[in-house]
Each structure stands twice: as structure tokens, then as C-alpha cells.
């Protein structure tokens, strides 16, 4: 009976940082078709309000054979630990590098072709480790006016934490998969002008992924905002 290793999220829990889970050598690894480089062109959320332009940091090595450790306490510790300077305030530039332990990691300003940001494919395309990882993401939401009583609606694989303008907005706890509108923040205010979203996503042997949009008081997606990386 082949139960062992079977189907715990569908992966064998081999250790990071090897690129595992593939049967042939893929010489075509790249970010396409999942991501394209971000441009300076004006960009709104997509038709359903999902934010598609992000600064993503190559994954920090955070080995975990399984995701059962992702309790609220574990995640809080993981997401409030400092890995690199100015981690909670930086709005990095495309190509900027940081040092995390022995790793030298680069920020990439990207646009996702989908409603979601497939971090697994981000890592895979750059030939970085896909499992046992912690990703940081930053973006800027530009609002034409102050908007009150909005909620940040997030889905992620696996656990994640999100901040708006430096304040914690929502924690996605436990081991979970990315479902749109899975967790929402309390009612927040988007300032007129710039607003910074920051997120951290952690995973063991899973398909790292997230999606973010804002919902108004009626639960409708907010689309009259623009997204930029600077």
C-alpha cells in the first residue's frame, strides 16, 4: 500500500533547496508565461479587482518538511522576525539585492498574467528553491481619494501575513491553499495617494501562491485604483 508520502498536499516532502518534483530536466525554465517584467505604464487591478503588479523577493530559505507546523504562534514568529534591513519599511527597486544569511537575494518588479501570483513558478523560473521557502512581496496602491471601510481580501498557499501602510492587516494561519477571498482584514482606510501593501508568504512542500484584492463596504471589488512599483 503506497500511503507513505502519498498526497500530503500531493508532494513528497524532500528537503529544500533542491528543485524537486520534476521528472525531466526543464531547460526552458523562465518566468514566462506566468510573469512579465513590470513597466511604468498605468495599471489598474484586473476585472475582478485582483492586484497584479508586485515587487517580489527571491525566496528566503526556510526549510520545513511539512506544513503542519504553521500554527498561529509559529507564523507570527516567522513573519515578525527580521531577515534583512528595513524589511518592514522598504519599497525596493527592481534588481535591488539583499543579503539574508548566506543567501544573496534579488527583488524583481513583475506583473502576473493571472489573478494570482504563483510564487512557486516565480521561484522555479529563476531556478531558486521552490519548497521550504519564505517570500516577501511589496506593492503600492494609488487611490484617487480616501476610501474608508475597505477590506483587504487575501488567499495564499500556505500561511501569510499582510500589512497596509505599516500596520498588520490580516494573518492567514495554518496550512492552507490559495482561495480567492479566503481571509479579509478588518475595515481599513485607503489614503488618498500612496498606500503600501507588504506581504510575507511561507511554505514547506507546497505550491506557493497568493492573490490580493480590496473589497468595498458592499463586498464589491475596488477597481478605481492604480498599482505601481515605485
Amino acid at each position, binding site marked *: 500500500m503506497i*500511503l507513505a*508520502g*502519498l*498526497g500530503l498536499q500531493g508532494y513528497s516532502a524532500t528537503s529544500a533547496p533542491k528543485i524537486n518534483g520534476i*521528472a*525531466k530536466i526543464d531547460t526552458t525554465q523562465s518566468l514566462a508565461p506566468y510573469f512579465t517584467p513590470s513597466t511604468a505604464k498605468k495599471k489598474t487591478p484586473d476585472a475582478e479587482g485582483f492586484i497584479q503588479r508586485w515587487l517580489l523577493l527571491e525566496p528566503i530559505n526556510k526549510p520545513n518538511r511539512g506544513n503542519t507546523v504553521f500554527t498561529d504562534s509559529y507564523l507570527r514568529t516567522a513573519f515578525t522576525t527580521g531577515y534583512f534591513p528595513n524589511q518592514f519599511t522598504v519599497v525596493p527597486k527592481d534588481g535591488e539585492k539583499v543579503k539574508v544569511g548566506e543567501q544573496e537575494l534579488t527583488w524583481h518588479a513583475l506583473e502576473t498574467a493571472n489573478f*494570482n501570483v504563483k510564487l512557486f513558478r516565480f521561484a522555479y523560473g529563476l531556478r531558486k528553491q521552490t519548497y521550504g521557502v519564505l517570500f516577501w512581496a511589496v506593492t503600492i496602491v494609488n487611490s484617487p481619494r480616501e476610501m474608508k471601510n475597505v477590506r483587504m481580501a487575501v488567499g495564499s498557499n500556505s500561511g501569510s501575513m499582510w500589512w497596509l501602510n505599516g500596520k498588520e492587516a490580516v494573518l492567514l494561519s495554518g*496550512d492552507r491553499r*490559495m482561495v480567492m477571498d479566503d481571509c479579509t482584514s478588518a475595515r481599513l482606510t485607503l489614503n488618498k495617494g500612496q498606500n503600501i501593501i507588504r506581504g510575507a508568504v511561507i511554505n514547506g512542500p507546497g505550491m506557493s501562491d497568493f492573490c490580493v484584492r480590496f473589497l468595498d463596504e458592499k463586498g464589491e471589488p475596488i477597481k478605481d485604483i492604480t498599482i505601481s512599483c515605485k
Partner: protein
Amino acid sequence: MKLKIKIIGTIALFSVLSTGTVVAQVGKPFIHDPSTITECDGKYYTFGTGGGGLISEDGWTWNGGAVRPGGGAAPDVLKIGDRYLIAYGATGGGLAGGHNGRILTMWNKTLDPKSPDFKYSEAVIVASSDGTEDCDPIDPGLLLDPTDGRLWLSYGTYFGFIQLVELDPKTGKRVEGNKPKNIAIDCEATDLMYQDGWYYLLGTHGTCCDGPNSTYNIVVGRSRKVTGPYLDNMGRDMLKGGGKMVVAAGERLIGPGHFGRMIIGDGVQKMSCHYEADLDQSGRSVLGIRPLLWKNGWPVAGDNFKEGTYEIESERRGYALELTVDFVRMPGGMRFNRNNNEPVKPVPSQELADVVNTWPAGNIGVRIGDYMFRPHQKWAITAVPGAGGYPGGPYYKIVIAGTDRALAATAEAEVVTVPAFTGAPEQLWRIDQLTDGTYRIMPKVVPNSGEKLALVSSGDSTPTLAKFDMKSDNSKWNFKAH
């Protein structure tokens, strides 16, 4: 895998004595990733991961003995015409580091390994991935579309997408030129079904294979077309993680996964699954069968019937099944216009001891009357160990609470109560929850008759045994514990 069929009565008896309530299937129902339960020549079969599977003579007591070559995982079975199509995944999804899964299909004229016709055809690959694509083909689910006869296969796991391909129902092979369509994410163990103009995609979310900590649960989305999009009750695409809950943990059963549907008859549907951990059976993975209800176009698992003391209420008129005995009045008449300062005290209900000596000995008839929670209207319903069962439940005895006076079918196709339960087949009752949430109640046997009859209201106040008719409230009952 050949296991001796154990003495069924002993196992069932042990099960009831040790737990008090029989909730999941009995026998040795140990299986992982069971296929849709399929009938063949009067027996029920389900195949599981690794090979082999379970066989049942009645759908309640299951033991090993089913035979399926090819190893691999999570098979599905579908009867097409006079033969059976079996699909299975060659891999376990990420096992040995690879995501290059393969789905295979093969045929057999019978599922009974003792039959001379038992012979699997050569398995053919119908779907696969090279390990780098956004899909890992495991966990096949089959659907023969009743509207146009086309055959569809869904497969996949958490690695990437759930995909849908079309097969040829005559050969079980992939239709030439057919390309996979992405239909969901975040799940595995998918299955497809059709009901009343909608196609339904079932998927298992959550974590598998973690014993009592498995969060496995089954969700559903629906579409007007088999190719999707499958949306949940919030209008959310299963491609974005949507899904409406069908069944989750409960009653000491954890981690339901791998949905299959059995249509027993008009208005009677069951769903099958495994539970990752049955806390009453050493926390092992066991076969589960539950009633399948339909609420506003959405399937949802009903609960297993719980033993207890009940009013048996007619859906026709809402009167209660009761003994044909004299009504015994409680003391005290109308009470209002009393002194409001008088303290309020509880009044005891009428007890069995207050009335039982007014009842005749011997058989007593049954009628349906105003419910007053009186002793002659309260029925204690308990599973009968060793009496077997049917898909989803054991046979029950239905007795007046506090006595051994048992409901029984008569040779005239009426109902009566006998003074003491003897275990005779006409005193054994099958209880099925119908798709609308009410219940069908059927005797195991109508004496001297081969007919399958159910408890039916022939008048507001008169019960009888007659053919079950899902379209009539006469055929339906509710169990109320009040």
C-alpha cells in the same frame, strides 16, 4: 489481495457492543481512496489505492476480496453497457519526487473475481504529464453524460490544475485530438456527476493522509456545461479555489475524501468516501457511506441515522405513528386565569408506567394520530447486531420506548406491533434518508411476499405498506426527538 470473509455477525456484534452506536460501515471496511461503489450481480464493489478493494453482499458489511491489478492509486469504476470501465492513477502524486502522473483505463465483464468471465483488458494510458506541466494526473473520476452519451474523465491534485479530458465510451481510450481543460485548483480526488440540468464537480480539499489531523473535506461546484466553469454558491470559480461544502468531519469520523455517488432509486442517493481516521476503529482509514441530499440544486451529505427515541411523523399530515390504544388523560384541565403570583412549577410528562397496564397483551395495531409525546407514540430505534444491512445503514428494530413491543410487517402488507422483538425479518427495518431530507422506512421482508414495500400513509391517520413513491408525501416520514 485475498482475505477470508470473516464471520460477519461476530464483527458487527463486537462493533455495536464496543461503541454503542454503529456509525461507519462494519466488517473490515479498511480502504483508502475508494472508487465509486458499483454493483455487479447483486454484490457491491469498491477498489482502493494499492490494488484490491472491498466487497459487500448487502452494502453494510464490507470485507476485502476485490481484485484490481496495476497497483497505483485511487481508482474509479463505471458500468457502461454490460461491462465495467476501471480507471486508476499509476502514481500517488509527488511520490518519489515526480509529478509525471499517468491515468490508465481497462475493462472487465465482471467485478467478481470468482466469475469465469473475470478478466481485465490491457490497461491503456489516457492522460499523462511530463512532470513540468501545471498538472499531475492522479485520482481519476469518470462520468458518462446521460444527456448525450459522451464519456469524461477528471483528474489531478494540488500540484497545478484539475483537468478534464474526453474518452471514447466504446474503447475507454482518449478521444483523438482532445485537449485537457483546466477546471479547478486546490483539490484532488475529483469526481463528476449530472443532476437535473447541472454538471457537478466534486473535489477533496484540505490535507490527506494525516490520521486524526487530516483536514480533508469534500466540496462541489456546478456548471451548465461539463467543460465548466464550475462555480460555487458564491459564484466563485473552482479555478480560483471555490467550492461549497458537501461533507466534513463529524461524529468521530475525520477527513472525508474521494467522493462517489450511488443512485439507489428515485429519491434515494448515497455518497461514498473514505474517512482518514475513524476514531472508533483505531483511527484507521475506513469506507464511508452517507445519504446524499439535494438542497436548492446543491448536493450535501446527510448524517448517518442516530439511534434514539423518536416520534415517527408523517410528512403527509404531520401526525405521529402510535399504538391503537385508549388515550389516557393526564390529570388537570384547562389552566388560565390563575393567580399570576403563584410560582410556576414543572408538570411531569405522562410516563410509560402510567399507561402500559391499560394496553392489551398480544399484538396491537398501529395508526397515526395527534402527537402528544405520550408513551404510545415514542419509538426507540436501535441497530440489530448481526442482522446485516444495506448501503449506508444496518437493519433496525423499532420498539415502543421502554418496552420490547416491536413494529412488524404483516402478510397482508399492513403494520402491527408484536409484544416482543424476536429478530424475525419482518421486524427488521431499513431507514434511508431521501434526497429531500425526509425518510423512507421499509421492512426487510413482507411475510409471504417478494414485494419491496415501504411504510406509507394511506390516510392521514392510517399507515400501511405499499410501493414507495418519491413524488408523494405519503411515502415520507420524519424522525423527531422531542
